[in-house]
Every structure is written in structure tokens, then in C-alpha cells.
């Protein structure tokens, strides 16, 4: 990746994180799981996916499905930065006048499908990918799943079927932030060796640093990884990435902050270590 591009995407990622922090106001959001997939969203929408904000129904477009729907602030922040939606709409988070709530829905331009119940969109995306194959169209179909989401048997069931149909136009991206809702994945339902599990289900697997834009480009540019296998990219990430007071803390899954705390977090995002929130008074669900 060129220096200029890297700088631009890094700056965009920072902007998206600012949007996510602001969406913790007035009711809160799933901040940790949103912050872990920012580089993935920014890279995919900025550099890889063939999606035109002015022609969202074009059947030749690429598709991104957010299966771990609670990370939708990262998507909305990205869509706002790229002009799919007005940035001002993000201030309507949780207001009945708009449809910006805790899980994605198709009232928001750029959202391909609703989610929230985990383990659904690998199958829905497989249906889209199969149709692209039936029509000999070159669309890429991507799904972002959580790692906790991999507890759901439906994920693995759909991988069996998608590989039976040799859907190498389908890519499952695992936001491997190491956490379920409340606890580390390896402490509750261990997933490792995760790459081996996907390989055993017939997938072509790559494991990368999900915050490293160079690695993202180097990996995604080589898709498809094979002629006949579903692609899986395990993106190792940090839940709460960018905010030391949120990072990798089990109790900071869903947070609602007041205006002062949001200002502190924005400071912290920009490197002010004194802004670190030690307080245990944060609203955590």
C-alpha cells in the first residue's frame, strides 16, 4: 500500500472511531465490538468492494453482510465517511425518527440485510453467492462474523453447504477479537485451533492482523484463495481497539457514556493518556 493511501485510510479509521464513540451517547452502543472491526470496514468499503453509493441496487455490485450486527456503529461510521449517508444522521442514533439503532437494517442505504440474531448471514450470503455463480457474475460476497458468533451451529452448517457448492466467491471474515459478550472465547467455548477447524470444513483460510491495513490489502487482493473453496480470513483484532480504557476489558461490551466521558474518550483516542477512564461508573449492560 502506498504511503499516501495508508495515511488516508488511517485518518478515515480514526474518524470512524470518533463516530463510534459519539454513538455511545444517549443509550449507548456495543462499542468494543465496533472498534475491533474499523480497519476491516474502512479498507473493504474504501478499496475493495465494488459498491457505488449512487447505484446501490446494481446487481453487479459486491456484497458485504454484517452477521455480527451489533458492530453496526463501525459500518454506519464508514458509510457516513464515504457519503452513503449524511453524517448528521448518526446523531439520530436510537431516535424513532430514523432507523439507526443497535442492529443493522435495510432502511439505511448500504446495508444489504438486517442482522442481530447471530449465525444467520453466512447462509443468506451463500444464497447470494450461489445466485452470482448461477448467473456467471463475478461479484464478491463477504460476511463479517464475530468469533463468539462461531458458537452457533448454523455458521458451520452453512460452510458445509457453501463448500459443497464450491462458492469461492464467498468470503467469511472473522473479527477475532477474542471475546464473547461477557468473557474471553477461550475461557467459555474454546475455538482454537480455529484455522484448522475452518480448513477441516473445506475452507481456504488465511490469518492476519485485522488492524494492519497493509496486511488487509495484501490478503484481500489475492482473493479468491482457490478455485472451489469458501475463503475464510481470520482477522486477529482487539476489542475496543484505539481506546486503552476499553481495550480487551470483559466488562466493556456495551457502554453508554455521558457527554463528559465522551469528550475524555475522544481525547484518549487521540493519544491523551490522562483522559483514561478508570471509573467503574460506566453504564455497562
Amino acid at each position, binding site marked *: 500500500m502506498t504511503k499516501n493511501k495508508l495515511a488516508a485510510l488511517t485518518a478515515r479509521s480514526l474518524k470512524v472511531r470518533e463516530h463510534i464513540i459519539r454513538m455511545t451517547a444517549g443509550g449507548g452502543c456495543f462499542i468494543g465490538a465496533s472498534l475491533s472491526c474499523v480497519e476491516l470496514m474502512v479498507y473493504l468499503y474504501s478499496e475493495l468492494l465494488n459498491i457505488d453509493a449512487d447505484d446501490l441496487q446494481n*446487481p453487479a455490485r459486491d456484497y458485504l453482510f454484517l452477521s455480527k450486527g451489533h458492530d453496526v456503529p463501525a459500518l454506519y461510521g464508514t458509510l457516513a465517511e464515504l457519503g452513503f449517508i449524511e453524517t448528521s444522521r448518526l446523531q439520530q442514533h436510537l431516535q424513532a425518527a430514523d432507523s439507526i439503532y443497535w442492529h443493522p437494517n*435495510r432502511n439505511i442505504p448500504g446495508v*444489504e*440485510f*438486517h442482522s442481530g*440474531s447471530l449465525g*444467520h*448471514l*453466512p*447462509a*443468506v*450470503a*451463500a*444464497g*447470494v*453467492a*450461489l*445466485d*452470482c455463480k*448461477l448467473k456467471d457474475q463475478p461479484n464478491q460476497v463477504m460476511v463479517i462474523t464475530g468469533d463468539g458468533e462461531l458458537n452457533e451451529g*448454523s455458521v458451520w*452448517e*452453512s460452510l*458445509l*453447504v457453501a463448500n*459443497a*457448492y464450491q462458492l469461492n466467491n464467498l468470503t467469511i471474515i472473522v473479527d477475532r477479537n477474542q471475546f464473547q459478550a461477557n468473557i474471553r472465547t477461550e475461557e467459555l467455548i474454546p475455538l482454537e485451533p480455529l484455522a484448522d477447524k475452518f480448513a477441516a470444513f473445506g475452507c481456504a483460510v488465511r490469518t492476519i492482523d485485522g488492524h494492519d491495513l497493509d496486511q488487509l490489502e495484501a490478503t484481500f487482493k489475492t482473493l479468491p484463495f482457490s478455485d472451489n473453496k469458501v475463503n475464510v480470513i481470520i482477522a486477529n483484532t482487539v476489542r475496543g481497539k484505539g481506546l486503552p480504557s476499553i481495550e480487551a476489558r470483559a466488562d466493556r461490551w456495551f457502554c453508554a457514556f455521558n457527554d463528559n466521558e465522551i469528550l475524555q474518550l475522544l481525547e484518549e483516542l487521540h493519544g491523551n493518556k490522562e483522559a483514561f477512564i478508570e471509573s467503574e461508573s460506566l453504564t455497562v449492560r
Partner: protein
Amino acid sequence: MNYEELLVQTASADERFVVMTAENRALVRSAPKLLGKRFIDTGITEQTMIGMAAGLALRGRIPVVHALAPFLTMRAYEFIRTDVGIAHLPVKLSGYIPGFLSDGNGPTHQAIEDVAIMRGIPGMEVFCPADEDDLVRMLPAIWQSAAPSYVRINHKPGAYTHTDFEKGKAEIISEGSDVTILTYGFLFGQALEAKQLLEKEGLSVGLVNMRSLKPVDEACIIRCAANSKLVVTIEDHFQTGGLYSIVAETLVNQPHKATIFPMALKERWFKPGLLSEVLAFEGFTPNAIAATILKQL
């Protein structure tokens, strides 16, 4: 024409159709050869089949999906509700061997709550053909509709030639002042014979094939409850949530003179066996139906 012939003919003429199954091929044996890649067998994966059907529908396809009724409607229920229902996608669910038609399989295979749970999904339409003739008459309208639908497949030949189908309209076989039987699905044939037995007793007997349970013909239900002394609902379904519930929901805020009596399965699964054995044991033969109704008059 039977179900399979109509399905293959419809799909052959219209590229939007795909035929899917979770490895239940009883109704679609010829589809792989005739439809090629538009026949999609996902294996024993009801959830994945429904999710994929939603994805295919997002791309403009009309998936007609097949599985045994209990596994289709219950194993995959949340996928139907969430992926098909919320998005209101034209996915056409064909549930095989619903109700008593699962005969000797046992309770795991008994779909006798399917009407209740499928009609609980906003926008989902529910149809219950009396026999093969009724089934084939209703499918074209169902498959061409933009709505998601569940059809309680009954492909058994019947003794009655039905009238043309109209969504939301019941088929009125006869009107009667003493008793009117409201029924749907496989038990229509038993009810038709029971009607003849009751008429031999000198009674004025109405019989209605409800066939379209959602949308339902409310005007017909209200009229029957106004014109008959007794209305009997007959269904191979739990008493909760099926036709008896629909009739109750329809009449509760309507003046009506009729007493409403349900013949359905009450809080238990039915005794498995040959279909004729099931009907006899559970009291749904024509003679048993007639005797039950006579006791209510």
C-alpha cells in the same frame, strides 16, 4: 397435473424460480434433471436452506423450498421469521406430510402446530389444500405472489372437484342451518363423508373448505355463525392456534348465534400408525365425526 409437474413446468417457464430441498426429494424427483442448477439440494440443513433461500430471493429469485413440515417450520423457524419474514421475501415454503399425513412417524414428525406458528409471522400467508386438485388450483396464485407463504402440502387425490382458488376466500361446498363444518387440509375428505351421513339423519349441513387460512375469509366465518345453530371446526392440528383459534378471533367481537365446537388435538401428539388407524383412534373417521356432531346438536 400433479404438484411436481406443475412445479417443474412453472420453474421451466420462469428463470426466477429455483427449487430447493433439505434432502427431501419426494415431491421433486424429476427436478434435478429438468431444472439443472436451479435445483438446489442443501442436504439435511433446514436453517441453511432458508437462509440461502432468503439470499436467493434478495437477488430476485423465487425459491420454492421443500422439507418435512415439522422440520421446515420448526427447525428453521427463526430463520423463516427473521430472514424471510422481516424482509418479506417471496420464499415459498412447501411442508410435506403435515398433520395426520405423517401417520406412522411418531411425534417428532408431527406438524400439528405449524398453522399456529406460521400465521404468527407478519406478512406470511398460510394455505391448506384439501387434496391434490385443491393444491394444484391454488399454487399458481401463491407462487406468483410477492408474499412469503407456507403451504401445508396435501398431494393425496380426493373425491371432490374443487372450484377455482381465490386467496382469502373459502370454498363453500354447502350451506346448512343445523350445523356448518369448517375444515381444511386432509380432513376435508372425511368431513365431506360425515356431511352425507348427517344429511341422512335429516339435518341441514353446511361444509366449508377453508383452504386459505391467512388471509382468511372472515365474512364466510361470520355468515356461517349467523346462519347455523352449530359451527364445528375440524383440523389435524393442536386446538391452540389453528382454525378454532382463527374462528374465535374472528367471532369474539361479532354477534353470532352459533355454538362453536372444536374437533382438534388437545395438548398431546396423536397416536402414530397407519393413516386409517390414526383416524379411527383419534376419532376423525366420517362415522366418528358424524357421531361427535350429533352429540352436540
